[in-house]
C-alpha cells in the first residue's frame, strides 16, 4: 500500500482500535501551558491518579504572562494564580517547567522546535490550536481540548478517528516580497476557513521545499485557520540540519539511525489523498486581511470584494471598512510583531532590515514581542534590539501578548492593528480592536509609514 507522510506517522502510533470506533493513538510529546491545563490536573486529582508519563510532558508559561518586568510578582491576581497553579502542578507531577525566569521560557510553539523537542515522525499535542506549527518537521501535531489534556495525562494516549488527508501543492517561483505568511494567507483566502475540517494537510511542492524551517512553521501554524486539524511538510535536509545539535535532539550515536528513519517518511509516489489542491506560486502576492476571520484576505493591492451576505457585512461593519475599498493608505496606529506565527529570529531579522536607519511614524505604537527568551537573547546579540529601539519600537519580553490579549497587552478599542499573528477575530486583540493580519515585512513598513503601503512592487534593499 502506498502511504502518505501522514499515514506513516499515524499508523506507527496506533496502539489499538475500537471496533467500529476510534483508534488509540500514542502521543510522543505533550506540551502544556498555564491556561488549558489546571482543569486537567484537577481531573486527575479528583480521580486520584498521577501522570502516566511525566517525562514526555513539557510545560511553559506563555498565554497569560506579562511582557514587562517578568522578574516581578505578576500584578493581575487571576493570572498570578494560573501561573502559580502551573508551577505547583508541575512540581507535584514531576513535569519539566520552563516558567518565567527560565532561559528557555517562551511561546510553547516557539520553544519546542528551538530546543529540539519537536522531531520528525513524532505525534505531539498541546491544549492550543496552533500546535499544528510543529507539523513543519513532518510531525503529527494538533491542538486538543482540556478533557483530552487530561486523557493524555492519564494514559499518554488519545482516542481519535483518523482524519482525512488533503494535499496542497504550490509549485513555481514566489514573487518579490512574498513571505511564507503571505503564502498561507493566500491559501486560506482561496480555500476558506472550513475547507480543511476533518483533514490533516500536507503542504507539498517546491515553494515549501525551498522554504526555511521557520517559514515552514509559519505555514503549518495557520493550518487550523482553514479548519484543518494540522498541517505537515515532509522532513528533508533542511529539517535535519535545523534539528541537529539542538538541546534535546537525538545525540550523535542515535543520529544516523533517526535520520535513516526520517528519510522513509515522505509520501510515497502514487499515494492518494481525499482532497487535493494545486496553486501556482506566481499568483501569490503580499496579502492582508480586511475582515474578522483569516479567510477574509486579499492581495494587498486588491480591493475588498463586493459580497452580499449578512455575515460578510457584519464583519465589515465591525472593521469599519467598505466593500470595494482599497486598503492602501489606510491609516493605522498599532503594529504588533509577535505570536507563534511570526516571532522567530528570521522574522525579526527581516523586520529590522527594513527598519534600520528609519523612524516609526508619529501615530504608531509598535510592539515587538519575541517568541522566546532564546529569540530575545539573539535579538540583542545580533544588534536588532538597537535598531528597533532607535526606530521607536517597543521591545517586550516573550509571551503570547497581544496575539490574544489575555494579559495587559491589549490594543485600544476601535483601533486598527496590523499584526503578524494568526487571528483577526472580533475582540481577539482586545475588545473592539480591528486586526489586519499580514507578514512581518508589511507590518514593519506599516509602522514606518503610519499607514498601509503596497509592498508588492517596492524595491527593498
Amino acid at each position: 500500500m502506498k502511504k502518505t507522510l501522514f499515514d506513516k506517522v499515524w499508523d506507527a502510533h496506533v496502539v489499538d482500535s475500537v471496533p467500529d470506533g476510534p483508534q488509540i493513538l500514542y502521543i510522543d510529546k505533550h506540551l502544556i501551558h498555564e491556561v488549558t491545563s489546571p482543569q486537567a490536573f484537577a481531573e486527575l486529582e479528583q480521580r486520584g491518579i498521577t501522570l502516566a508519563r511525566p517525562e514526555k510532558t513539557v510545560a511553559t508559561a506563555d498565554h497569560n504572562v506579562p511582557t514587562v518586568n517578568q522578574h516581578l510578582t505578576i500584578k493581575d491576581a487571576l493570572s498570578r494564580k494560573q501561573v502559580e497553579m502551573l508551577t505547583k502542578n508541575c512540581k507535584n507531577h514531576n513535569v519539566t517547567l520552563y516558567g518565567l525566569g527560565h532561559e528557555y521560557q517562551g511561546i510553547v510553539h516557539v520553544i519546542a522546535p528551538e530546543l529540539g523537542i519537536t522531531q520528525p515522525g513524532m505525534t505531539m499535542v498541546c491544549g492550543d490550536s496552533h500546535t499544528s506549527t510543529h507539523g513543519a518537521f513532518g510531525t503529527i501535531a494538533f491542538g486538543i481540548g482540556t478533557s483530552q489534556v487530561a486523557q493524555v495525562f492519564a494514559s499518554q494516549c488519545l482516542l481519535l478517528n483518523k482524519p482525512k488527508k488533503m494535499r496542497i501543492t504550490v509549485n513555481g517561483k514566489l514573487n518579490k516580497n512574498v513571505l511564507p505568511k503571505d503564502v498561507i494567507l493566500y491559501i486560506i483566502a482561496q480555500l476558506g476557513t472550513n475547507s480543511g475540517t476533518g483533514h490533516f494537510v500536507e503542504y507539498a511542492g517546491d515553494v515549501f521545499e525551498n522554504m526555511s524551517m521557520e517559514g515552514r512553521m509559519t505555514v503549518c501554524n495557520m493550518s487550523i485557520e482553514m479548519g484543518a486539524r494540522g498541517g505537515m511538510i515532509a522532513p528533508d535536509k533542511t529539517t535535519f540540519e535545523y534539528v541537529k545539535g539542538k538541546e534535546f535532539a537525538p545525540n550523535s550515536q542515535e543520529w544516523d539511525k533517526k535520520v535513516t528513519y526520517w528519510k522513509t517518511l515522505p509520501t510515497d509516489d502514487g499515494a492518494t489523498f481525499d482532497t487535493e489542491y494545486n496553486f501556482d506560486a506566481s499568483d501569490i502576492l503580499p496579502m492582508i486581511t480586511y475582515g474578522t476571520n483569516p479567510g477574509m484576505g486579499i492581495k494587498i493591492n486588491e480591493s475588498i470584494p463586493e459580497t452580499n451576505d449578512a455575515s460578510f457585512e457584519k464583519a465589515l461593519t465591525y472593521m469599519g471598512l467598505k466593500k470595494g475599498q482599497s486598503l492602501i493608505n489606510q491609516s493605522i496606529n498599532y503594529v504588533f510583531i509577535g505570536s507563534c506565527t511570526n516571532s522567530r529570529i528570521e522574522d525579526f531579522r527581516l523586520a529590522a532590515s527594513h527598519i534600520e536607519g528609519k523612524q516609526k511614524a508619529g501615530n504608531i505604537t509598535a510592539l515587538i514581542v519575541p517568541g522566546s527568551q532564546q529569540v530575545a537573547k539573539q535579538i540583542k546579540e545580533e544588534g536588532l534590539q538597537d535598531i528597533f529601539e532607535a526606530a521607536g519600537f517597543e521591545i517586550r519580553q516573550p509571551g503570547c501578548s497581544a496575539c490574544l490579549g489575555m494579559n495587559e497587552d491589549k490594543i485600544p478599542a476601535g483601533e486598527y492593528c496590523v499584526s503578524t499573528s494568526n487571528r483577526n477575530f472580533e475582540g481577539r486583540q482586545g475588545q473592539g480592536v480591528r486586526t489586519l493580519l499580514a507578514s512581518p515585512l508589511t507590518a514593519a513598513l506599516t509602522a514606518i509609514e503610519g499607514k498601509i503601503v503596497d509592498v508588492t512592487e517596492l524595491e527593498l534593499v
Partner: protein
Amino acid sequence: MEKFKKLTSTAVSLPVENVDTDQIIPARFLKATSKIGFGENLFRDWRYNSDGSKKEGFILNEEKYSGKILVAGENFGCGSSREHAAWALEDYGFKVIVSSYFADIFKGNALNNGLLPIQISSTKLTQLLTHLKENPKSELQVDLENQRLSLNEIGLDESFEIDSYKKMCLINGYDDIDFLISKKESIEAFEAQNQ
C-alpha cells in the same frame, strides 16, 4: 458526565456564520482554574456593553427566546481550542448545538462535556433558523438513540451522524479517560515495542 438520550426543548437561533470560540468566551475570561461559572460570560461581547449593561437586539437578551438548544450558522466553534467554550455553553444551560458545520476541536470538546453537536444540511438549517426566529415557542425533539432531530410543525425530521463510540459514551455517561485507563496493558506493550 450526565447521561443523554432524548430532549424536547425550545431553541435559540443565532444566524451567524463562523462563530469562533473567541466570541463564545473571550480570552480575558479564561483566567479561571476551575470549570464552573463560564456561562455568565458566554458570548460576552455580543451580550453586554462594556459598562456591563445588556446589548439590545442580541438574541440571548430577548426574553421570548430560551431553551436548551442553540441553532447557529455554519462552521460553529472555529478558532481557538479552548474547551472553555464548551463549558460556557453547557454552564449556560445548552445541551444541544445545531449547525450545518462544526469545527473539529470544538466538536470533540462538546462531546467530551455531554454537549451534543448536531450537523444538518445548510438548507434545513436556514429553514430552522428562520422558523425559530418567528416561532420562539416551537419545540425541537432530539432523539440520540435513533439519531433524529425533528420539528413537527415544519415537517422537519432529519437523521444526524454521530460516531458510534461517542454515542455510546453519551448515552451511558462514560468518558474517554475511563476507557483509556482500562487499556493500560496494550499501551505498555506498545511502548515496549516502539521506544
